[in-house]
């Protein structure tokens, strides 16, 4: 196999869209961990789930399989890795730009903890979230849980538009 073909399988897998935020490719989202092509034309693609219960995983697997098979690759195997766990830090710069262009607020750095028990947060930690429509910083958290596992629901207090914030994990 030549390098050109190998990169073709990678390029195709990278181009598959996230079913829940279809402006992002799997590469933008950071869930595509590895693409390996073997001499017999088979491909092994490794992905990692965003959340344990993310219902988009089965669709992603199907879409990767179909995309590669439609391009002529023979056996396509999609493997799952759980470790290291996905973090919003893995969303690419390109992905963040696309999210903003589509009305999403992008995640800040994921929380880190050096040692000790997970700290309890009784008051909502204010995130520096700007309205993706009018750029006002005058925003309010409506709910830490939104339309999908990865989003929190915000509202702009100036233009009054509700919007999704991809929450740090």
């Amino acid at each position, binding site marked *: 196999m030549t390098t050109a073909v190998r990169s073709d399988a990678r390029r195709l897998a990278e181009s598959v*869209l996230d*079913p*829940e935020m*279809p402006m992002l490719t799997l590469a933008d989202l950071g869930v595509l961990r590895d693409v390996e092509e073997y001499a017999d034309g088979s491909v092994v693609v*490794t992905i990692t*789930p965003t*959340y*344990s*219960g*993310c*219902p*988009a*995983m*089965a*669709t992603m*697997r*199907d*879409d990767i*399989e*179909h*995309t590669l*098979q439609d391009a002529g690759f023979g056996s396509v*195997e*999609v*493997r*799952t*890795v*759980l*470790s*290291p*766990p*996905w973090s919003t830090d893995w969303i690419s710069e390109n992905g963040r730009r696309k999210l903003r262009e589509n009305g999403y607020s992008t995640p800040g750095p994921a929380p880190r903890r050096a040692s000790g*028990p*997970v700290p*309890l*947060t*009784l*008051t*909502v930690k204010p995130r520096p979230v700007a309205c993706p429509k009018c750029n006002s910083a005058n925003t309010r958290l*409506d*709910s*830490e*849980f*939104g*339309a999908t*596992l990865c989003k929190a*629901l915000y509202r702009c207090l100036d233009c009054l538009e509700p919007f999704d914030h991809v*929450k740090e*994990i």
Partner: protein
Amino acid sequence: MTDHDNAYEGLVDEDSHGQWAFGTSFDDPLAGVDTTVPEDVDLSALAGYCLMLGDDALISSQRLAEWSTRAPELEEEVALANVGLDLLGQARLLLARAAAADASVVPYISDTSPVPAEDALAFFRDENRFRNTRLAELDNGDFAQSITRLLVFSTWRLALFDRLRTSRDPVLAAVAVKGVKELTYHRDYAARWVVTLGCGTEESKTRMAAALTHVWPFVEELFVPTTEELALAAVGVGVDPRDVREEFDSVLEQVLHAAELTAPTGRTVGTVGGRAGRQGLHTEALGLLLAEMQSVARAHPEGVW
């Protein structure tokens, strides 16, 4: 390419697996995950342990799902469903792990049934084979009761999972690392509501106090270790639940103090000959929950979704 903007597109478009909806081919959630277990680990104990942790998540998830269409506000309905979905994901991984460690835990359906192992465990076991703590099956009651149950459950589970991150079983460790991130959101959500209700109106304070009284008898059971937990804790695979008591008490104290509430004392739900949820002895509530949760799968044991 599948048109993800049209929810109905997938329903008429048979994919190459011959199924009627896209993305419904339920692959093994551990496909491609290295499931090698250290040699000194008792596989039967590991399977039992994964069932306990998986059943806690599955039953809690089902209880939270029961709030759909009934929550006091749309935002809370969405939140409870999100929390339930996280737990369902943890349950799938853990039940699949149990089946991979010891296939004999999986109920036999038929030679031709296409039901995967984790679904067989969820939908084809009877009540006395479920190993969740009885806290998980506790009825929803009002919003205060469900939130109190979620606070107790997620505080306890977060402390357990935080220690399981270093389990010598690579799958348990990976499930725990992901789970810690999710459970941190769940615990904060529940804790904030307990404070809001505890410091709210006379009505919400009364209901919060009643919820605590109702849920508290199920707390002690969370910290009684089973023989499997002790055996696995000794070899660095599991966690002795007694080790998380201090952290649990400290978090609950913080929340209840902020909520101007006090933890009830005294009454603890009984056991029968030392048996409780972990040994398959449940309250009446679990049978009713399972009857609803399992009815469709049991009516179609050869079904493909």
